[in-house]
């Protein structure tokens, strides 16, 4: 184990870019496809994931030394589920419109594999500060990913970019919109194109040659 210890900054940027959960790790694809019809709901979903992931990583990291191996997963799930429940109540109380538009996907954050994945892969092995940084980086990376997809889907599919409530910028007239992009299939299309572009830059020339 001659691995060099990463700094907090490295851990944060790791999730943000290098190991982006959406485009590199392909974690949490379910909400990626479901709530990316508009930038607004993608932002809302992202904020929810930031909340849950940072707190769950922190909590799990704090108790990592007391948790018996055999029941660690059930315990993670209890913690994550409680956090999601709390998040859902807050959202319904203070941003009810957003809660309505996210609908059942808000509750389904519980089963977002990104969260359980980070708990198992990182928080259970690292200190609280690093775990929080990892959670924040991953969650913001996730948010960035789904907002990017939502931006293209909404812009090209519906011609608008909705930031909050009724604040929508109408950019493309109805005649030039690509209706399929706001359908379920459109999410796959946009997702695939963005991943392809990212891979083009991420992988080295040699690797690309290999692929060919």
């Amino acid at each position: 184990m001659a691995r060099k210890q990463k700094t907090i900054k490295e851990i944060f940027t790791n999730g943000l870019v290098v190991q982006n959960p959406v485009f590199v790790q392909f974690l949490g694809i379910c909400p990626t496809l479901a709530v990316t019809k508009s930038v607004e709901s993608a932002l809302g979903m992202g904020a929810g994931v930031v909340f849950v992931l940072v707190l769950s990583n922190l909590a799990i990291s704090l108790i990592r030394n007391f948790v018996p191996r055999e029941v660690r997963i059930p315990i993670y799930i209890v913690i994550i589920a409680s956090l999601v429940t709390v998040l859902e109540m807050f959202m319904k109380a203070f941003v009810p419109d957003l809660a309505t538009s996210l609908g059942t996907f808000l509750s389904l954050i519980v089963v977002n594999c990104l969260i359980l994945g980070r708990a198992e892969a990182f928080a259970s092995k690292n200190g609280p500060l690093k775990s929080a940084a990892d959670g924040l980086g991953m969650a913001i990376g996730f948010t960035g990913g789904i907002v990017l997809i939502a931006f293209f889907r909404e812009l090209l599919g519906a011609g608008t970019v909705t930031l909050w409530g009724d604040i929508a910028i109408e950019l493309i007239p109805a005649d030039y919109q690509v209706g399929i992009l706001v359908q379920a299939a459109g999410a796959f299309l946009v997702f695939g194109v963005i991943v392809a572009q990212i891979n083009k830059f991420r992988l080295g020339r040699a690797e690309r040659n290999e692929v060919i």
Partner: protein
Amino acid sequence: MKHLNIIITLTLVVLISSIGVYFVEDITTPIIDAYNIRQANLAKFEVFPELEATDDISPEEDYDFTGTTITELIIVDGKGYIYSAEFQGFQSIITYMIGIDLDGNLTGYKTLTQGDTPGLGAEIANPDFYPQFIGLSTDDAADGNIDGIGGSTITTGGLIGSLNKVIEFHNVEFEGAVAETPEMRLIRLKEEITEVGATFTDVSSDYDLTNTPITKVEKANDTAVIYTITAEGYYPGILYLVAFDLTTNDIIGFRVIEHSETPSIGDVIDDETFQAQFDDLDQDEVDSIGGSTATVTLGGIKTTLEEVVIFHKAEFQGIVVETEDMKRDRLWLELFPEATEFRDIYRDYTAHHDIEEAYEVYNGAVYLGNLYFVIADGASYSEETYVEFYLGIAADKTFTGFRMWDDNETPGRTNDFYLNEYGDSYTGDNIEEEYIIDDIAGSTLTNNILQGLALDVAVYHIEVYLGLVFARPENKELVDADLRLAYPSASSFNSVYDDYTYDDHIYNIYEALDGSDAVIGYVYYGHAEGYTGAEIEFAWGVDLTGLTQKLAILNDTESWEYAQEWRDYDGSQGYWPDTPWITNFDNVLFSDLLSDPDIDDVANVSTTTENMRIVLEGIAQYHSDESVGGAG
């Protein structure tokens, strides 16, 4: 030991998580509930901005909303009132909600549902319509001091009427206003049309009010009589009062007690200007009442009022005017003087499109005959007209007589049909033989129609009621030479009338055969009544395509003398039947005769030509109806 550790850890985590969730829930639940209440009652928050989710907004159940148009009332404790109400718009029930604060001002208005015309009545649901109600005093709202919707008087009128009732209810229940009870209002209305302070005595039991629209008769101080009358307007349920002076017997007042007529149209009957017409109205001038474009509503008032006048004349002036019921009874007894019972059998037999009523007539247990009531199309070509009459058929298959009930044929032309002499000319005629019935000069068309209908009834009586075969008269025969006048290219003829239904204007129908005995057409041997009363007999050929050959007049006593001074028929063109008019019926398609009967009758000989034309057109119709030779 390890197991214990697992259990303790799990328990602790679950416990701590649950406590956390519990506290969050405690904070957020009231906020979420308030939001949900607000969402579910958006309209109430909109019309009553001071409303808060914590307020009790359960509807009140202890109020009687009858006649107020109110569907729901919410009392917001210490803040005000929220009313839901509904009214009839132009073509839909419109529901709306208003809020009223404790100062007696409206806090808002919102239309909940409506289905009126888009762009007109539907504008009542346009949010631009709402702000004018905010801060409006209830007095203004009750008086209808609002900006209505352009071009939608009915919708606006309905809203104003409903608002008025809602505010009236509100003022009575919550502002201490004293409501006029229906009883008080009724007395006020009665006093308005008679005398203030008069004593009203109900004398209804002294009179037989059956078959009258009158529900109550009251005397006011023995100087006037007040009738309470039900009438049907555009909607049922008009109840009104009318007063007659007992000295002059003039109408002295009219008030509507209740009605459901359309706002701004039928409801003018509740208007002072309209009611003023009755303040001193001659009892025979009821028909002069006007001032309303609501013909149906007005018609309902006039019809009933005319019946009341008849009643009043009979009971208070000793003038007996025959009512419709009395007239009906009289006519029935004229047709069956011995009758003690008329048993309705109309629905026991197959319907006939002209027969509206049918009765079996008995004297005790002795069957006397059948009475039929016929409503049929009249003679006019230019407009829909009708004739209505009673026809009696005795047990021995003779007519007992005919009685005209009503018609709207050319005014004046039908008077003679109402005479008993006319009706009695049917009496004794065997219904299965040719009828000897008086003709009414000048009303040939009606005359022929009535005789045709009498035959229809006779056939119905025999075939449907008695279930027998109508005995048609013997066919009359023509010699080939006469037939060939109508169908010159035929070489022989063969009677086929027995294959078709009997028609009283057709003596016989022949097939026209060529040299090889193939059918090339038909010849109708028919007759029409001429001016002199004698029959005009004719033969008329038609080929298989419905194209007529010749119309040959075989026998008549007509004269063209009257036509001699008449334009084209100056006599030089020959006397009847050798006139150009007859050739109108040569070489013409039956279908053209029926679809476009533009052959004019000839003035001065109109009786002859009219009769001929009707009979010939009837034959064309018969040819098609009976599918003679496959025509149709």
